[in-house]
């Protein structure tokens, strides 16, 4: 397969992720709407094939060739292009890997059976994410954003329930506002430059005279706002906690990549088109983004400490990790970009693992109760506690896992910046806050027992009244912990798989960060990108 991919047919493989997913999604809706087993088989097979294709694309992108795939064979600034470079190949691979874990978890935990069309929605969600990573046209980016959003609306309310639907309405309203803002930004960009192709835009914005720059600066800030909504940059993060906490755990795990779509878009658009070296952009994006990113990190960490249930805690951990990612992006140097990419991959995997652990806990406590209160031990208490411990260490950025290395790389990259001491202080102090928050949550959930003296004997019988207010609904509904229903092994395997990927990232940190350095260099070398996309313009008859 690899040989196939590096051959002359390579160009056409770029579009494969965008063809396979909607095709399988449609097949699942049309032919398998009542056949869950069939849909499961096809879903696992499709995601596995996607992972193979993504690995092939990653392999071929490592040769430093940027492939521009012209849809309908229209030459570049007129038609829509898909662009495969190291960064997009990397993000596609990460998405496919995450999707495999999510699909396996959803099947094992039975989440996909709690509502209809889980697997089809997942395919369309993947289509949107892959498209956003691969496209080289900014209006097409908007369209793929909408694709991934509309699929995510369906996934977010999967399984139903009053709370989830209410949170879903908020999520949709927030993102529709974001989409409207995106349209305004695109209108402004088109009015000023007359093009929507990213490479063409980069060329035109770079040569704009600084004295007539006000409109394009407005457009740059508007698109930053749109991407910041996706990336949950404070103060645009308000959609995230309720959404992630109320969504099914497995969907929240998939959404770990969604905030990274926003980060990717900032990275792409604000280095390629509105880069810090562009005369009209001088000093516009970087400093402000850096301060807001630090604020994001602080808010996220305080949220971890202050959260009263596990789902919200994991959501705030996701916000905090985006803070670190965006600090790296806000520095806008190749070294910082390489560091932030490392942390971004790590935090996607760690965030997803944490949400899966949250779901494991919910599945084992009565009424899916994930409040941070002491309860009687759940089935497999020790194992779940160990998984929580590992993912919390990863999320907080403690050694020995890759979160530590990622934060170290970001801090190292910040050394050249004027704000180095502020950045270091923020990262280190928030890490401490996060550690305290996770430790408190973990000991409350897994270690501490209810204080009510009657609780222990009652736990054996599972009946009677309890005067403790906090544990009241649980004691009534819950059977004896040890004799609970047998827990399926596949969800545990999927969670362990994600954690194993984090361990692998730690062990192979050298090669991975070598690849990421090359990725960052390629990203900041905008000439190469523009050349690859617009190269055929002159050749066209």
């Amino acid at each position, binding site marked *: 397969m690899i040989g196939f991919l590096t051959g002359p047919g390579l160009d056409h493989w770029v579009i494969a992720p965008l063809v396979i997913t909607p095709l399988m999604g449609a097949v699942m809706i049309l032919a398998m709407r009542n056949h869950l087993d069939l849909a499961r088989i096809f879903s696992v097979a499709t995601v596995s094939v996607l992972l193979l294709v993504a690995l092939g694309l990653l392999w071929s992108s490592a040769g430093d060739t940027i492939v521009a795939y012209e849809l309908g064979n229209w030459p570049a600034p007129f038609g829509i292009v898909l662009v495969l470079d190291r960064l997009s190949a990397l993000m596609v691979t990460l998405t496919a890997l995450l999707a495999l874990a999510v699909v396996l978890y959803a099947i094992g935990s039975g989440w996909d059976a709690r509502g209809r069309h889980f697997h089809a929605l997942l395919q369309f969600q993947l289509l949107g994410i892959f498209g956003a990573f691969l496209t080289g046209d900014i209006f097409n980016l908007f*369209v793929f954003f909408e694709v991934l959003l509309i699929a995510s*609306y369906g996934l977010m309310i999967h399984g139903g329930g009053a*709370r989830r*639907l209410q949170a879903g309405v*908020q999520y949709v309203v927030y993102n*529709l*506002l974001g989409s*409207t803002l995106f349209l305004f930004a695109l*209108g402004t960009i*088109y009015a000023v430059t007359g093009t929507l192709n990213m490479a063409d835009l980069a060329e035109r914005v770079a040569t704009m005279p600084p004295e007539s720059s006000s409109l394009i600066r407005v457009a740059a800030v508007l698109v930053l706002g749109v991407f910041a909504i996706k990336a949950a940059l404070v103060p645009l993060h308000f959609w995230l906690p309720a959404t992630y906490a109320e969504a099914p755990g497995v969907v929240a795990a998939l959404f770990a990549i969604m905030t990274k779509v926003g980060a990717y878009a900032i990275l792409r658009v604000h280095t390629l088109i509105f880069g810090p070296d562009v005369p009209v952009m001088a000093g516009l994006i970087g400093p402000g983004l850096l301060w807001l990113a630090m604020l994001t990190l602080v808010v996220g960490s305080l949220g971890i400490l202050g959260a009263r249930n596990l789902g919200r805690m994991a959501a705030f951990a996701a916000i905090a990790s985006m803070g670190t990612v965006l600090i790296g992006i806000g520095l806008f140097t190749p070294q910082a970009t390489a560091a932030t990419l490392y942390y971004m991959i790590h935090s996607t995997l760690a965030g997803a693992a944490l949400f899966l652990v949250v779901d494991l806990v919910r599945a084992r406590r009565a009424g899916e109760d994930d409040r941070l209160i002491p309860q009687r031990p759940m089935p497999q208490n020790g194992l779940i506690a160990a998984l929580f411990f590992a993912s919390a260490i990863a999320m907080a950025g403690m050694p020995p896992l890759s979160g530590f290395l990622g934060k170290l790389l970001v801090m190292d990259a910040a050394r050249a910046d004027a704000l180095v001491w502020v950045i270091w202080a923020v990262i280190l102090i928030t890490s401490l806050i996060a550690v305290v928050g996770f430790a408190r949550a973990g000991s409350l959930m897994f270690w501490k027992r209810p204080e009510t003296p009657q609780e222990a004997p009652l736990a054996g019988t599972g009946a009677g009244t309890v005067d403790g207010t906090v544990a009241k609904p649980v004691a009534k509904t819950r059977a004896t912990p040890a004799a609970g229903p047998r827990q399926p092994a596949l969800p545990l395997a999927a969670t362990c798989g994600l954690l194993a990927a984090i361990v692998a990232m730690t062990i192979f940190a050298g090669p991975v960060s070598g690849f990421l350095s090359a990725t960052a260099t390629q990203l900041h070398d905008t000439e190469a990108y523009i050349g690859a996309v617009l190269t055929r313009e002159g050749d066209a008859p």
Partner: protein
Amino acid sequence: MEYLFSSAVGVLAAAGVYLVLRRRTFPVILGLSLLSYAANLFLFASGRLALNLPPVWVSAETAYTDPLPQALVLTAIVISFGMTAVIVMLALGSFLSSRTDRIDMDETGTPPSDDEGRA
């Protein structure tokens, strides 16, 4: 014409923002629709306003109106139409399951009573 057009966009957007900030889902959805109309008009105007001109450039013509924003507006209209349908269904489902159409929620999980804070 430019003044008329831009003030129309401005009024639509202002009304949309006002409605989005209301507390009930219905005005919020109306506000989103108005905002998307404003965005569509804005997109349309991004190719410059021109009267009675052909949409594509023919060598005989010296002036033409830009066809691309019209294609963009079509895409945007289709998407916002679909999204509005989705959010109407979602809001309806949320109203029917929680018996309140308030857009905010409190942390405890009990939906706020329907009487307080009428929007």
